């Protein structure tokens, strides 16, 4: 192409056509319009969007939560640096993706986990989940979720022991099942003042609403308006980052405002969970609590907005995003109600991540001007 232009320009018989110097022309594939965004920019906006719920986690679970978040982030970044050095690749930690993975991993852990659990989780996330597949953009699964599920299978006891949140007085009802009788005595003696800085002291633990719902026959206590309100603000046992629905939604607004996530995925995901649990609750109220409980309790909101929408591992088309969200919703509800684990968000997203190439393949749009061949 450039050769041709050169010959035209040098041709003395066509002086009227003045072509630009071919060296100044950039030949590239589409798209040709660029909004100036970069991986780095996107990643730092996502980190900004994650910070409110991290702050809420630190507020409710104390300094220990900050320790877990920092450790996970530092380990993830350090492992990324070490891996890139060992593999002889360009250093990629500064693009921020390792920071996000670390933050998300920390947000998926209980505030009381030991430091080495963070290290194992960071290894699973960065090395197994991301770098072994070739780094950012090549990973089929969300690295933070790979780590979370790996840890959940690997250390089931540590990963399901939850720190008591700061304002636990609504949990003190012995019938509700948040704490057993021993814990209740301890909590009474400790009082609310001590909690913020001693989250893990004296082995104070509590159950999550979903794990109570798993074995319960009536859901009266865990679905009371007071309890639901506490779940919404994040004052409930659980992972550091998953509990505070209010602040997660704030982050989600940031993501949506910058158009970093497809609204189809969270809508389809949360919508599917809500519809299925609504129907099941109406058919048999003793089977499962209603949709509001399922949305605010557990990790559905962080999963739907921050993990299922991961650009690398979710479908590219709008139709695909709907299918992805609906699939996640069905699997999550099935695991929550009939599965052996109380929570199914991470499993469902990983499962649908595996199906993403297939969804992409069959949900692709019609090329412009394409006419379908008639079948004989």
């Amino acid at each position: 192409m450039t050769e041709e232009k050169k010959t035209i320009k040098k041709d003395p018989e066509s002086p009227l056509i003045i072509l630009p110097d071919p060296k100044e022309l950039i030949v590239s594939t589409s798209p040709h319009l660029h909004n100036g965004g970069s991986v780095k920019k996107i990643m730092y906006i996502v980190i900004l969007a994650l910070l409110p719920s991290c702050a809420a986690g630190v507020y409710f679970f104390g300094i220990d939560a900050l320790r877990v978040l920092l450790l996970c982030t530092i380990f993830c970044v350090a492992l990324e640096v070490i891996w890139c050095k060992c593999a002889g690749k360009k250093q990629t930690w500064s693009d921020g993706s390792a920071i996000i993975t670390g933050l998300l991993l920390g947000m998926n852990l209980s505030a009381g986990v030991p430091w080495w659990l963070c290290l194992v989780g960071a290894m699973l996330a960065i090395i197994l989940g991301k770098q072994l597949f070739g780094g950012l953009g090549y990973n089929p699964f969300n690295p933070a979720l790979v780590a979370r599920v790996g840890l959940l299978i690997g250390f089931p006891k540590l990963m399901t022991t939850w720190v008591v949140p700061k304002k636990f007085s609504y949990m003190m009802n012995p019938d509700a099942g948040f704490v057993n009788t021993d814990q209740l005595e301890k909590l009474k003696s400790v009082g609310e003042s001590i909690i913020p800085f001693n989250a893990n002291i004296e082995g104070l633990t509590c159950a999550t609403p979903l794990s109570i719902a798993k074995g319960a026959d009536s859901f009266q206590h865990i679905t009371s308006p007071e309890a639901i309100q506490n779940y919404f603000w994040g004052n409930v046992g659980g992972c550091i980052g998953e509990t505070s629905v209010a602040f997660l939604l704030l982050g989600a607004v940031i993501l949506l405002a910058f158009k970093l996530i497809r609204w189809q995925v969270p809508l389809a995901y949360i919508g599917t969970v809500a519809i299925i649990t609504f129907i099941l609750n109406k058919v048999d109220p003793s089977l499962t609590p209603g949709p509001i409980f399922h949305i605010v309790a557990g990790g559905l909101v962080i999963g739907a907005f921050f993990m299922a929408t991961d650009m690398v591992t979710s479908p590219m088309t709008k139709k695909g995003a709907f299918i992805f969200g609906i699939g996640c919703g069905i699997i999550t509800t099935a695991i929550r109600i009939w599965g052996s684990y109380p929570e199914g968000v991470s499993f469902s997203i990983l499962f649908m991540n595996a199906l993403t190439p297939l969804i992409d393949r069959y949900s692709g749009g019609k090329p412009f001007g394409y006419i379908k061949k008639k079948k004989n």
Partner: protein
Amino acid sequence: MSLLTEFMKGLWRENPVLVLLLGMCPTLAVTSNAMNGLGMGLATLCVLLGSNIVISIIRNIVPKKIRIPCYIVVIATFVTVVEMLMKAYAPPALNTALGIFIPLIVVNCIVLGRAEAFASKSSISSSIADGLGMGIGFTLALVALGGAREFLSAGSLFEYKIITSWTTKFMLPSQSPGAFIILGLFLAGMNWINMRKAAKQNKVYTPPQGFDCKHCNICSFKDDE
């Protein structure tokens, strides 16, 4: 090929687990620790050796059309012997851990594959070398896998604690997801070593010829006249 090369090929170049990818079911299922891997490997080694010898002896009198049933009967005989011996003499814990996978050696692709691909066409002595090599290669791969899984999950090897301060068991490597992950890492490592070796000699590594679907003629009757 000399007997030594027949023997050696099973250890690395044509390792049944890590290169031929045969016998995945026992490989993934029983290697939760090094001891189980060793037990399973030795049991398979015995069956493989016995069946290779017998099939090599009867290779000229077995009609082509019913060769597979004949091989199965021979293999099943050896499996029954091994199973009874293990029930009598093996440690009870090992026996319980291996469970159904000992009888299932009958349908182990390594045993049937070597019978069909090698013993039915080769002399007794080279069949013995092949059976021993393949069996030991299988055992080594299983012990390595089991050892890696055991070490990563509890910091021990053959139930001997190497890292004594490792108290909380990491269940992921010793369970089935870990089996797949660590087998994948082993395969990647194997290819990496072979590629490096080839690169040092300024060559490009290609897997040994004939290890695709074409080399297996279990379900083909084309040479049947």
